[in-house]
């Protein structure tokens, strides 16, 4: 007899736990306000990334098309993956008559970048920073190799002091 009572108890308590579980899911289906879906491409206008979000390395240029990169290669050394490649050039300074290093191209291989943020603190002149763009999908891998300094841009005066 005790066996039968235990058997019934087992069934009843088992069913109770199942109903308890169904209560949880039942709560959510009856509370559509709890829905947390964000519809991504549609909410692009309101989507704001966090300030520190690391999307890609960018080089800010001011209105005179000037940047702050002296071509010191500190970022290139700091990068663990060889993502940054600086092609240098020497131009003659008219006033002093000395040759001076500048950058010809600041090549950034986005396909190799792990967004580790080691290059940013390494830069002595704050010439590069992390951008917010994260939509990097392209059709061809070669498009991921970017030149960060804009054509015709030059070093901002007073950065090197």
């Amino acid at each position, binding site marked *: 007899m005790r066996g039968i009572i235990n058997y019934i108890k087992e069934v009843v308590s088992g069913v109770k736990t199942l109903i308890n579980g*169904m209560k949880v899911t*039942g709560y959510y289906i009856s509370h559509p306000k709890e829905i947390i879906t964000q*519809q991504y491409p549609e909410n692009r206008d309101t989507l704001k990334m966090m300030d520190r979000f690391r999307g890609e390395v960018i080089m800010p240029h001011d209105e005179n098309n000037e940047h702050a990169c002296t071509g010191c290669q500190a970022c290139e050394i700091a990068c663990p993956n060889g993502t940054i490649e600086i092609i240098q050039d020497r131009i003659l300074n008219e006033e002093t008559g000395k040759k001076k290093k500048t950058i010809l191209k600041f090549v950034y291989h986005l396909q190799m970048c792990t967004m580790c943020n080691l290059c940013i603190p390494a830069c002595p002149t704050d010439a590069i920073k992390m951008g917010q763009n994260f939509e990097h999908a392209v059709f061809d891998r070669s498009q991921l190799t970017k030149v960060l300094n804009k054509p015709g841009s030059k070093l901002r005066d007073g950065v090197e002091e």
Partner: protein
Amino acid sequence: MKFDIYDFSVLTASIHESLGSMMGETAVMITEMVIVGVIFLTLFAVLGLALVYAERKVCAFFQQRLGPMRVGFWGTAQTVADAIKLLLKEPLMTKSADKFLFNLAPFIIIIASFMAIAAVPFALGLQALDLDIGVFYVTAVSSIGVAGILLAGWASNNKFSLIGAMRSGAQIVSYELSVGLSLLTIVVLTGSLQFSEIIESQREGWWIFRGHIPAFIAFVIFLIAGTAETNRGPFDLAEAESELTAGFHTEYSGMKFAFFFLAEFVNMFIIAAIGATMFLGGWMPLHFGELTSFNEIMDFIPPLFWFLGKTAFLIFIMMWFKWTFPRLRIDQLLTLEWKYLLPINLINILVMAFIVLMGWYF
């Protein structure tokens, strides 16, 4: 009864007559068969699309998601798009698969559910086959489907598929018993196996209310066993995505896969429809004994809506099961059947027979 105005037999009879005036008796029969066949084919497609959409939405809301939202208004055309995608997909097959059986399996499954749906009473006078052994016919026919699953698993020549098929075989053979016995509990009450008569007998009230606790227990068991019969979660061991990748239909793609998918949803509909018919009065409106005015208002809602509403309710409960519970293990599945459902069912049917003998039901 007020709902007699919605009697579909008037419509069918007039069609029969007008056809009879045009052609001979055999031709009439063949034409009618073709018409019914076409209607059911369309119903299959529509049901499949609607149920897949419903499942995706319901599951999404259980999970605090929105579900498909892109194609059409609130994603209503999503399943159509999916169907087109499946149609255009390449039908792949493993090199060492048994080609004939591999191609045959999805058809067996779909034919089984096709045959079962023929006996479902949709509304007053709207039933393709009103057999006098309807209950028996449906239980018999719906178990043909397992042959298709076994074939699919075997012919795929894939061990995961085979394990899934064998699980499914063990599962359906045992849960067939519970489904049959729980239906039998109601058959004891009605004294008939014919669906139209069973519904007619619920004119005064649905069996789940009139049949005391045994009817309710039978209903719960039917729901559990019915879910198991359709290979749906928490009894989806034959697919068991996290264990067997996709079980018996691992190797299927394109339209052949869609057949399995469709059959699963249509089977769910059939189980829910049978449950609604046996326990919830089928297309019979909700009646409360003395409340005449209430009963009359209920009668104005067409029987088809009553039927579809009840079926949808049962389908929703089955979805609720699926999206809440973890999957059972194969030995626990069989334990549940043989140690719990079957004994409870047998005692239940005994109690029910006693109640019927004493005439204690309402």
